[in-house]
């Protein structure tokens, strides 16, 4: 018995177990922190939009309503789980899980600060695209499986919207890939740190603009929230969901927003680094840990999400498609050509 154990427990297997253990620890840390962020993203959204509309937002539960997300979570957890009579049960159960999983899986390739990333893969950016397009299944399936008009219309709208804007978003990031010469997110950030302006948002302003618009559409946020347009479709694809399954959709949506903000921070705003000319001017800033800069950028982008939601009305569906196909995609293609030309000329 002990012989077999001795064979199995070599230094190599122990090392491997250590590695796996560290990965699990990282996953636990990232998941925990992200879910906390998601919970408080809902709180800050209500707070920011409330103040923009000269209201107070949540204020009764805890100090300035700070325990509101927890109260909401407890409420959703204990609510009755209703399933429509003619729903396609397996798909109805599966849809929120796909949505949530696709959002959470994207977290695994995001480098939060130098060296802290769960899976440092070479195709990080492509992996993010793959996962975000997978999220569309959750939406379409939930729309179809609920056996309801409103859900179905929401699902259909979302399907065409996500496909259309996926293209624009992918093309907008091609410029970044060309500038960095890599698909690995850590390498993209390092390339930005080497670059004189310190952020790709400045030379890639066209790409950045296309990315922002496409990111709003991909996450079904205002002004492109047609799949869940409250005034027409009740709640769109998750109209028939209640209780914890509804919470999964909610969490998935906010996780997707956080991920889009992270992509913007990593690919366009320099991730965990700040431009060199700033650190040259103020060397004290070198001591600030990278995660602080990363989080500041992510929070700023999230604030922009809320800000736009409080400002702009919803677009009409044909306008949405026209923006996607007639403006964003040609603009992104032009950006690629421009970047390529300038790169070969050695200007950028």
């Amino acid at each position, binding site marked *: 018995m002990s012989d077999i154990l001795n064979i199995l427990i070599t230094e190599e297997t122990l090392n491997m177990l250590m590695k796996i253990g560290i990965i699990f620890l990282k996953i636990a840390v990232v998941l925990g922190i992200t879910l906390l962020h998601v919970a408080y993203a809902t709180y800050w959204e209500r707070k*920011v939009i*409330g*103040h*923009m*509309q*000269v*209201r*107070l937002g949540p*204020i*009764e539960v805890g100090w300035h309503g700070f325990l509101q997300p927890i109260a909401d979570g407890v409420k959703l957890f204990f609510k009755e789980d209703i399933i429509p009579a003619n729903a396609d049960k397996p798909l109805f159960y599966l849809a929120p899980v796909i949505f949530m999983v696709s959002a959470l899986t994207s977290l695994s390739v995001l480098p939060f600060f130098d060296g802290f990333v769960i899976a440092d893969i070479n195709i990080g950016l492509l992996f993010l695209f793959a996962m975000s397009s997978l999220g569309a299944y959750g939406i379409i399936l939930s729309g179809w499986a609920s056996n309801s008009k409103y859900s179905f219309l929401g699902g259909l709208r979302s399907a065409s919207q996500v496909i259309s804007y996926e293209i624009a978003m992918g093309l907008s990031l091609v410029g970044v890939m060309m500038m960095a010469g890599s698909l690995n997110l850590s390498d993209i950030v390092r390339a930005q740190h080497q670059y004189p302006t310190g952020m790709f948002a400045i030379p890639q302003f066209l790409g950045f603009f296309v990315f922002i618009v496409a990111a709003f559409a991909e996450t079904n946020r205002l002004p492109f929230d047609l799949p869940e347009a409250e005034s027409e479709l009740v709640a769109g694809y998750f109209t028939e969901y209640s209780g914890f399954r509804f919470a999964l959709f909610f969490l998935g949506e906010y996780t997707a927003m956080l991920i889009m903000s992270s992509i913007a921070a990593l690919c366009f705003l320099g991730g965990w680094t700040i431009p060199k000319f700033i650190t040259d001017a103020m060397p004290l800033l070198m001591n600030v840990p990278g995660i602080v800069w990363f989080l500041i950028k992510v929070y700023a982008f999230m604030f922009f999400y809320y*800000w*736009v939601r*409080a*400002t*702009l009305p919803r677009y009409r569906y044909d306008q949405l498609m026209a923006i996607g196909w007639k403006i964003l995609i040609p603009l992104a293609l032009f950006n690629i050509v421009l970047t390529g030309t300038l790169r070969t000329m050695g200007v950028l």
Partner: protein
Amino acid sequence: MTVREFIKTIFFVEILKGLALTLRSMFTPAVTRRYPKVKRPVKPGFRGLHALAKDKNGRMKCVGCGLCGAYCPSKCIYIYTSDGEDHTKVVDRYEIEVLRCIYCGFCVEACPFGAITLSEHYEYSDYSREPFYMTKEKLLSNWDKYFAGEKGKNYFKKFWRPLSEDFRTPEGQAVFNKIKNAK
């Protein structure tokens, strides 16, 4: 599309203006009133929960004439009287179904004795319907609660209508001006 409009469109001038507006309003103080904690001050003369007025000696002013019940548009006032000693009219029951009341205040105006009043009290929600059926005793205790002291007197001075001055000739009317001018 002129050049100016085109430039405005590609630089999102309108959207930026909108964003600036929302950002500005974010830093203006909120107008929210946190209701159960901060109550809205009731304007004098507000028509709230009913009360039956008492006179100086603490007796009910109501004589049971039934004018209020006759006037009531939603017919929610019930009055039952009987023949008392030496043929005085005794009001046995005076009841108001508050859930049906529309707070028009006609009963107050109809009352010749200033007996029925509408108090400034408005927070009387409950879980069942019984508490909203006001009996005579409840209505009288409402008077003690919501018109205590000088409040009752002031109410009749300021808000109880019609007073005798309401029946004077309105001076501003054009018809009368003509007569004045003719003289």
